[in-house]
């Protein structure tokens, strides 16, 4: 599902074209060189005749012509592709701000109307066919965003905003990965791009805008208390409650996401329990501390987080 040779975005298709041009031009030239080499090995001394010098000049002229043509073709393809990739979407339908953290991604859907802004983590939803412009930044060290099926890599550099355009062409889930070594858990810094129909995307966006429902069920209510009375709300935010910290991922709709901890674990109660019990065992070195909770408190907290759809 994530291969450079399976281009499912406009930009990735440009890159794929360069790849194929390179492969066939260089492959053809390589085969020619090998053919000449074999001919040179087989040729016997004394084979030459009066015509030999003329044949030699024809071969050389042809060789030089092929090289000029091949190199010119490669340069032109590379130039045109570069131009197409750099050309950012002039009127993007979706604008994002993606911030790299050690070791997760913060995703903000920017909107001139502040009440229509969405903040989430590690999962990007996009409508199929839409032009997307993402501003990239970093909170700590240099990261690099790479969704191979949609576009090439682009670095996220602290203090220096960069941009990347995306235009997915087919509905599906695409895996992205940090492509610049950024510390201990670089390998477990993944994200998922969910490309869906415009209706599904709009529905998802409206759900993300909604505040968390009040914890009505008894166990969830206790879980909410655990969330606010222990360390959780010092780093995490939940829309519609007092929790508004921006140190860790936004948990307003954590249960709607497919993965936990930047693609490290599937998001189900069993893995959530393991993660909450000891995040350092699941992803050593990450910045989530071990918070010792009693069994009942942990059950309640998992129940509460499960209500955050």
């Amino acid at each position, binding site marked *: 599902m994530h291969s450079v040779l399976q281009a499912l975005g406009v930009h990735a298709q440009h890159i794929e074209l360069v790849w194929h041009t390179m492969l066939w031009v260089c492959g053809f030239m390589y085969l020619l060189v090998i053919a000449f080499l074999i001919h040179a090995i087989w040729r016997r001394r004394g084979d030459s005749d009066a015509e030999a010098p003329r044949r030699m000049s024809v071969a050389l002229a042809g060789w030089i012509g092929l090289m000029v043509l091949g190199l010119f073709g490669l340069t032109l393809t590379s130039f045109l592709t570069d131009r197409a990739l750099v050309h950012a979407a002039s009127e993007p339908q979706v604008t994002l701000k993606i911030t790299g953290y050690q070791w997760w991604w913060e995703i903000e859907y920017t909107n001139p109307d502040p009440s229509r802004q969405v903040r989430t983590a590690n999962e990007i939803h996009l409508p199929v066919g839409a032009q997307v412009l993402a501003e990239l930044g970093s909170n700590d060290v240099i990261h690099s965003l790479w969704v191979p099926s949609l576009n090439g890599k682009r670095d996220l550099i602290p203090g220096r905003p960069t941009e990347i355009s995306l235009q997915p062409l087919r509905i599906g889930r695409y895996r992205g990965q940090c492509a610049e070594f950024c510390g201990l858990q670089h390998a477990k810094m993944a994200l998922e791009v969910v490309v869906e129909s415009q209706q599904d995307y709009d529905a998802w966006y409206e759900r993300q805008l909604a505040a968390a429902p009040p914890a009505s069920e008894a166990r969830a209510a206790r879980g909410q208390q655990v969330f606010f*009375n*222990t*360390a959780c709300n*010092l*780093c995490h935010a939940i829309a519609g409650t007092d929790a508004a910290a921006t*140190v860790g991922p936004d948990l307003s709709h954590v249960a709607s996401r497919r993965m936990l901890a930047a693609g490290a674990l599937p998001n189900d109660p069993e893995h959530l329990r393991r993660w909450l019990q*000891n995040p*350092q*065992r699941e992803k*050593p*070195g990450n*910045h989530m*501390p*071990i*918070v*010792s909770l009693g069994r009942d408190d942990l059950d309640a907290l998992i129940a509460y987080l499960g209500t955050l759809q």
Partner: protein
Amino acid sequence: MTLLVVVALSACHRENRYFEAPPGTDVAPTQVAMSSLVAGQSSAQFREQQRKEYEENAYHLSEGKRLFTSFNCTGCHAHGGGGSGPALMDDRWIYGGEIDQIYLTIVQGRPNGMPAFGGKIPPQQIWQLAAYVRSLGGHGPKAARPSRDDHIQIPAEQGRRDEELNTAPAQTD
């Protein structure tokens, strides 16, 4: 020559990073005296153990530095220079400047503004914060300490203004 290289290599020591605190190092101190004016005594052995574990470890110190900003300690103490809260990089400590004393100050809070973070911050992170706070004042091995932030320095014109204020005759009205 070979012997020299072997000896030199064997002298290299890679610092350990403990993501899960070794037993007994992420607990609250049981006995802490805030100053010699208050009755009670601190466990010197425990203090020494915590200093060794946290103050001499570059990872813990840099984590403490990160948390110091994350938890908005900077809001009152700036980057150690102080603001509405006291400076942390000097050697005057109202409630004690030892690592276990700072731990309790963070956990219990102190009069005139310091909130209590007990139960909010996990113990290991409090120890990391306490170790970092001590490193601001130059305690602990220099090799382990994170570098100072650039913005700890006052901009030049601000510094001049402060100087003028300090040297101006005291106003009496």
